[in-house]
């Protein structure tokens, strides 16, 4: 019993430390990868290969003046950046990194993830509203509309997987992929989920809430110091989360030959993360209304179609 609790505690702390470290390390990874694709060097001065750049950035962001705009709605302004980090971290609780290596095994773990990522929208919407600045407001509004819409397709796109696995339990979903990864039979669901996932993390090409060339920094224009850092960390945590979940749902999670499960999971997740960075290096940003139209007119019908077809085939096979 006590052993069980200690084991759980170790996992909780381990997951916390590892995800936060990865989120921090991603700053370096992204900058170096982007630089690689953009014919430049990226940070390569601080420490070996510029690895300590992250540390330097952390020191900087911690010691910067943490300015509270006098015109802002103080309480909400402070809470907003905390929400994003909290919800994403909470969602990590249900990710099965390897057999037995997870914080909790819920029967509805997938729903839990969806619930947590829905809560994330409060963070950006609050931030945009509480800043009491026009740019932030526009960014917050865009964020709210974008994330709410893509939430819908994200949930729907996963139903195919749920139907095939017969469970909302992520561990079960991984186990049922021993024969074949779901990215093949559920290719439509996979693509829709990936697009919705990018939109959820507000990364280019879906970075409209912060669109630098238009809205300066969108919803976090007024943020500075560690509060801004929280949004930053939240974004990288979000990328890690969506990548980990994509791997779990569509790429067989920890499954793989020879290497230990945790290693497989890490490798796959990292490839997904690199894909996210590559997206940022290669695509322009659509306009807000185009983004919405694309979601409701293209992604929604496709994910519905996916559900119907998957359901039909499963029913036929059962009979």
């Amino acid at each position, binding site marked *: 019993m006590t052993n069980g609790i200690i084991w759980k505690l170790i996992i909780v702390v381990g997951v916390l430390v590892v995800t936060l470290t990865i989120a921090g390390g991603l700053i370096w990874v992204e900058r170096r990868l*982007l630089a690689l*694709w*953009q*014919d*430049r060097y990226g940070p390569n001065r601080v420490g070996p290969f510029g690895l300590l750049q992250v540390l330097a950035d952390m020191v900087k962001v911690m010691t910067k003046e943490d300015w509270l705009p006098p015109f802002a709605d103080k309480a909400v302004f402070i809470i907003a950046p905390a929400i994003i980090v909290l919800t994403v971290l909470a969602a990590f609780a249900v990710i099965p990194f390897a057999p037995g290596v997870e914080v909790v095994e819920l029967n509805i773990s997938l729903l839990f993830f969806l619930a947590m990522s829905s809560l994330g929208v409060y963070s950006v919407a609050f931030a945009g509203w509480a800043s009491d600045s*026009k*740019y932030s407001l*526009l960014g917050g509004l865009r964020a709210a509309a974008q994330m709410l819409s893509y939430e819908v397709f994200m949930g729907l796109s996963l139903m195919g997987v749920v139907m095939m696995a017969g469970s909302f339990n992520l561990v079960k979903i991984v186990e049922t992929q021993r024969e074949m990864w779901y990215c093949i039979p559920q290719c439509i669901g996979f693509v829709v989920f990936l697009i919705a996932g990018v939109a959820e993390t507000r990364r*280019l*090409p879906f*970075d409209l809430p912060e*669109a*630098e*060339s*238009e*809205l*300066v920094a969108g919803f976090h224009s007024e943020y500075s110091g560690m509060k801004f850092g929280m949004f930053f960390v939240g974004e990288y945590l979000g990328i890690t989360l969506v990548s980990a979940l994509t791997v779990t749902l569509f790429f067989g999670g920890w499954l793989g030959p020879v290497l230990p499960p945790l290693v497989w999971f890490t490798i796959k997740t990292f490839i997904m993360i690199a894909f996210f960075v590559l997206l*940022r*290096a*290669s*695509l*322009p*940003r*659509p*306009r*807000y*209304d*185009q983004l919405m139209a694309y979601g409701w007119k293209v992604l929604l019908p496709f994910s519905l179609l996916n559900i119907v077809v998957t359901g039909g085939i499963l029913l036929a096979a059962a009979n």
Partner: protein
Amino acid sequence: MSGRAITEELKGRFGEETVSVQTTCDGVPTLWVPRESLCEILAYLKTETEEPYRTLYDLTAIDERVRSRREGQPESDFTVVYHLLSYARNEDLRIKVALRERALSLPTTTTIWPNANWYEREVWDMFGIAFEGHPHLRRILMPPTWEGHPLRKDHPARATEMGPYQLPEEKEVREQMALQFRPEEWGMKRSREDTDLMFLNLGPQHPGTHGLLRVILELDGEEIVDAVLDIGYHHRAAEKMGERQSWHTFIPYTDRIDYMSGVTNNFPYVLAVEKLGGIEVPDRAKVIRIMMAELFRIISHLVFFGTFAQDVGALSPVFFTFNDREKAFSIVEAICGGRMHPEWFRIGGVAQDLPKGWDGMIRDFLKYMPPRLGEYERMVMKNRIFKARTKSIGAFTFDDAMDWGVTGPGLRACGFEWDFRKKRPYGGYDQFEFDIPTAQNGDCYDRCAVRMEEMRQSLRIIEQCLNNMPAGSYKSYHHLTTPPLKERTMYDIETLITHFLNVSWGPVIPAGEAVFGTEAAKGNNSYYLISDGSAVPYRVRIRTPSFAHLQMVPFISRGFMVPDLLAIIGSIDYVLADVDR
């Protein structure tokens, strides 16, 4: 000269005594008309005459009060100059109106040409000449709190001629209050039907405006109802400086007007001076000039392309194009010594001969560039998101372009095949083969596509320069060439004296007026120079494409959304120093 027909036509229509002719050395028909019949004549020229002058190319003024060499011109304290352009005739026309100091006002021409708006404001700002009936006659380049009119001859040009600058608190508050935007002053409403409108202040510090530009947007949600542009934050009094620099020492100032395209700025200036001085430039100098100008056209377009892609959210192209630009700069550096502002052209030629090995560098660049352009085509121009963001956004028609004085790639994007290098070959362009790229829709995408193709055409021209570089001198032997060739200074006293004078005082350019317009990277850039027969220009007027194009932004962005505005101003390709001068 060819202006005789229109002169006779105007005389026949408005009476012999209404129109008086001035001869200028640039051959542009120059007519003085009285204040009363100005609007009538201008309206006639724009609409009624056959092959009309549809474009108000430039509008400026001259403070004539201390000018001594005005033979054959009517009495005038201040002269307002309307420079019209007829594409149908391929001809310019200069209309001048004489004003006396006690009555400095004219009727507005904003009803005839919408682009007269900013030009008239500029003349008001700089000379204090009022335009009756102008919708918003207020300062445009100087801050609203400025006292005096800078381009008047009695206004000081140096900071040392004015008192020391101080900023006490009450002045600071006053200056800041003056920047406050009041929608009512611009005839804007705070609400529409049952929605409240939001005013968004974009700039002067904003990552998307490419410099110090302030745009005040009237928004309904994210939809742009109207916009007001506030410029002048980059004003550096280049025209005023022209009146205190010698003809030669003004050249470096020109580089910094459109700071993206270096020697392309020198081109119209030295051509105008050479016209005034009657200097013939040797062939080698001509080809060197063209080669450098085309190289800078590519450099300017590369920056445009990268930043435009960035404006619509693509992060990478800007790094690629800046790398290419670096390659081009290494050539510029090898030839000129400088990079962004090489100040390389001279009155009568270029600064030095080409260095050893220049041809190899150019050849490498010609090999390197085309595949890169192909890559950009695939990466950006064919990208569906990019197309969705730029097609049918910010479109204007050929007629709009005529009304707003659009030149350059923007004009060609409306399907009008017009390039001053082809239609009025200057500086030796008639010897080169190249095409004029055009597009049909006049939207952001087309403006970008035209520039892409222009880079290819520029490469073609550079290749011809490389293969046919003439031998001979890189500078003219004319006595006004500055600095003069030195070979014979130690052999005869005349050349020694000329050399001494041209280097110490600078050349004395014969009295007269000349304008020269060239096809710069961003559109037509011209210098209108007036010499009073001294070592400094009497008046330097710089007509820049960016000023004309930027003025159009509110007109083409109404009804679009905020992100579209950024795409539009990106596609216009302006440089704030080119706008404000």
